[in-house]
């Protein structure tokens, strides 16, 4: 199955595209700066296309089959969104064009800000952050700026529950915060006593994911936010799990002050094999002035004769830019198309079916796979991939065996507080038949684990590749094609 690399397909003097000859007189080239060697491959167009088409077929993807990868929300990516994002009026405009010439784009961004604000209950939304982790960095910098604007410079302590995504502590550390890990209680909620012990005048805030990474709605959320607020801290919401809350509950109503959205999870923009994402940030009114620059505002609402007018502004106390230009615009077009297509009831339907599907799978497997925090789950749940009567079987083995059934495995080894975690998120877009087949596979694998564990240890056998040697990769560290000396 091994496909040559694009460099190995190269032969001297082949090319995949030609450009027109210059229609201007030639100028003298800057001799002292000229490049001598340019070791790029030389491959004709048809071979380039065949190469990338061939390797594409080695992937599993949402359009191929079920992808219940917990915390990633691998829902169907509607095709219309791909079309609208590629309309020339969107794809060909330059980010620094005069605002008069890009009123459509600015209006679309303004509407997206408004929709996200209405869905979440926040006062203002910035579309600039490029991804979830980037939104976290933005949000924590906003919290930092808020405290400093009040002369409250000693507030540098950020609380992060032990169930949090690794990006949470990393984002806080990048912002100069000191991280304190909070334990969860025996129902998977924030431990209020542990929280109380940290609530003092050095508290900058807390980073909360709700529903949390166990897929559970935190039953202590209102009280936890109150405690943090009473001690002068702010609450950051990781919006990774917003798919469970669309039209169900507004995060701002829980007491969250600043939150990022993942347009590539909740709003159906494709994951692209690891990006590009988009991580807009919503804030309460008191924090709006700290949002990253620039923000889209409507400067005139328009009337019968004149359309509304939109402009870009820098909030007065802005934390500054977090990237160049205005955010991942073409991802925003996809998300806007999605929201517009669904409307208010369609959005609520998403959450209801996401939660229904997760609970359905949980109900069918819970007698065989131990669920450490067994409650009604939200859009995902975490099971344990181990049994006392199947020693030597790990969650990873179950995952690799699922590949043989044509399914993408669940998320493994996360959250860290569950041993041998299998985190399962079906999303709303799967049929009952698909989920039934997945459950059948899980039950068969549990049986195999106890009766014929080698099937699991040797899996996958029906994928294009067997298990890959990660130790060798890290030890030998080959990070680019090794070219022959005379290339």
């Amino acid at each position, binding site marked *: 199955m091994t496909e040559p690399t694009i460099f190995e397909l190269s032969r001297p003097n082949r090319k995949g595209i030609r450009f027109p000859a210059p229609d201007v007189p030639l100028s003298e080239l800057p001799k002292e700066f000229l490049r001598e060697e340019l070791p790029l491959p030389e491959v004709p167009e048809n071979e380039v296309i065949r190469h990338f088409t061939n390797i594409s077929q080695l992937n599993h993807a949402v359009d191929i089959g079920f992808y219940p990868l917990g915390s990633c929300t691998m829902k169907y990516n509607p095709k219309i969104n791909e079309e609208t994002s590629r309309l020339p009026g969107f794809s060909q405009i330059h980010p620094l064009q005069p605002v008069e010439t890009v009123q459509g784009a600015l209006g679309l961004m303004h509407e997206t800000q408004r929709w996200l604000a209405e869905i979440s209950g926040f006062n203002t939304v910035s579309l600039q952050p490029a991804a979830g982790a980037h939104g976290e960095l933005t949000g924590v910098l906003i919290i930092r700026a808020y405290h400093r604007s009040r002369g409250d410079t000693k507030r540098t302590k950020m609380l992060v529950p032990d169930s949090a995504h690794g990006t949470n502590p990393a984002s806080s550390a990048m912002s100069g915060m000191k991280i304190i890990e909070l334990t969860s209680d025996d129902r998977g909620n924030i431990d209020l006593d542990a929280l109380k012990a940290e609530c003092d005048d050095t508290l900058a805030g807390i980073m909360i994911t709700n529903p949390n990474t166990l897929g559970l709605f935190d039953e202590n959320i209102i009280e936890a936010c109150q405690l943090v607020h009473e001690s002068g801290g702010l609450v950051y919401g990781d919006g990774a799990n917003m798919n469970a809350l669309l039209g169900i509950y507004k995060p701002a109503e829980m007491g969250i002050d600043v939150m990022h959205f993942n347009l590539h999870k909740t709003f159906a923009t494709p994951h692209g*094999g690891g990006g590009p994402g988009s991580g807009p940030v919503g804030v309460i009114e008191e924090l709006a002035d700290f949002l990253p620059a620039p923000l889209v505002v409507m400067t005139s609402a328009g009337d019968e004769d004149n359309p509304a007018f939109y402009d870009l502004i820098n909030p007065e106390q802005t934390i500054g830019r977090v990237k*160049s230009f205005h955010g991942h615009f073409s991802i925003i077009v996809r998300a806007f198309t999605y929201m517009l297509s669904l409307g208010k009831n369609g959005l609520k339907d998403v959450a209801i079916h996401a939660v229904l599907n997760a609970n359905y799978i949980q109900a069918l497997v819970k007698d065989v796979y131990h669920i450490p925090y067994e409650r009604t789950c939200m859009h995902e749940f975490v099971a344990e991939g181990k049994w006392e009567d199947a020693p030597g079987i790990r969650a990873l083995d179950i995952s690799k065996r699922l590949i043989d059934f044509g399914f993408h495995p669940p998320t493994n080894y996360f959250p860290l507080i569950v041993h041998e975690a299998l985190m399962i998120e079906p999303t709303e877009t799967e049929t009952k038949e698909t989920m039934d087949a997945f459950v059948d596979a899980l039950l068969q694998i549990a049986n195999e684990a106890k009766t014929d564990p080698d099937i699991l240890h040797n899996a996958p056998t029906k994928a294009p590749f067997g298990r890959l040697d990660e130790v060798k990769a890290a030890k030998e560290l080959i990070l680019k094609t090794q070219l022959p000396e005379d290339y």
Partner: protein
Amino acid sequence: MYTSHTQADREAMLKTIGVDKVEDLFQCLPDEGKFPQLALPEGITEMEALDELQYISSVNETPQELISFLGAGAYNHYIPAGVDSILRRSEFYTAYTPYQPEIAQGTLQSIFEYQSLIAALTGMDVANASHYDGATAVAEAVNMAYHNFRGRRKKIVLSPTVHPQYRDTIHTYTKGMDLEIVGENLKPEAGPDELISLIDDQTALVLVQYPDFFGRIYDLTKLSEAAHAEKALLSVHINPIALGLIKPPSEFDADIVTGEGQPLGIPMAFGGPYLGLFATKNQYVRKMSGRLAGETVDTQGQRGYVLTLSTREQHIRREQATSNICTNQGLIALASTVYLSLLGKNGLQELASLNYHKAHYAAERISTVPGFMVNPLQPFFNEFVVHCPLPAAEINKLLMAHDILGGYDLGQDYPDLTHELLVAVTEMNSRSEIDFMVEVLEEETHD
């Protein structure tokens, strides 16, 4: 709309779960605020959505309606049809980060090839799987240098001719780091050698752009020697198309090379998503943030690829990680991989020369208009500064009346440069477009 359950499905599933109605699944949520009425419209069909979005997009004016000489960090280049044809393969775009390598070799091999191409283009030992864009790649270079000296060296020497938005981003990213950033107050006309006197034994990083924000090409040899004499790192931000023609920064012994990858087959799309290129020397590979694909073998001995060195990353190291980056620009990196594969060595050289010649023709022609000046001695690539007889903002307005996007008004970022216009010329600008702009300038500024 994208859900499939019938009423019968729902009832069967609820029965399995053991509840009566879907609302019961939300019992643990606070009653107050539950099931809000959203002040949003009802959904619409695909036909209606397309119609609506077509209308909105038609309100924007594109380079199809306008002649554009606007660059300043985003460039109008031709995108070969093959690029989008591969991006539209849903095996690529509907996959996630390749955590299960047995069923993600397409993504992993494409990342590995991307790393190989960027390393070859920049002349560096190793490239990562990308950052969000040029601005964040530059900010991550600062982050890497800071961590390289374990936070003990606090000084960053930053050229005033690094893109103003990238410099803004550096300031935002480093707010919690207690750094001293110097150099930005130097006169923008200054070349890289003016930075040398600022470098000392507290300097972690010297950061320049090549060609710089004004399009100028400089020899960085002396600056590099000065930085290395103090054991500071040198980071060079590049335009990838320029490297088809001019020496890569590796020849100046750069330690880090970053770049905005947008010119490599990525639509301008009002600013994103773009692509942050990031490459370094082997000795710094463990200090570099971002994903990395590495070569290995599977149980049958087949060559394959996995994500590697993840012990640097946030999902393992949490607050000790080198950066919080998680998702990167996977599909956009793929676009540039296909683009560089199609152009290859000859195509990129041809394209870079074409840009060079067209830009120099434009500079020469504009210089003939009374009151307009381009420094004839300064080497540049495809972008250059024009000194205008009127404020650049006014020149842009005059040009706009003729449907020409003139260029970037440098007065917006450099208070002393109100009369300077930054003009970009690519293969998309025909000779007749250039001649037309020159004609308009002659007419409009004629006394």
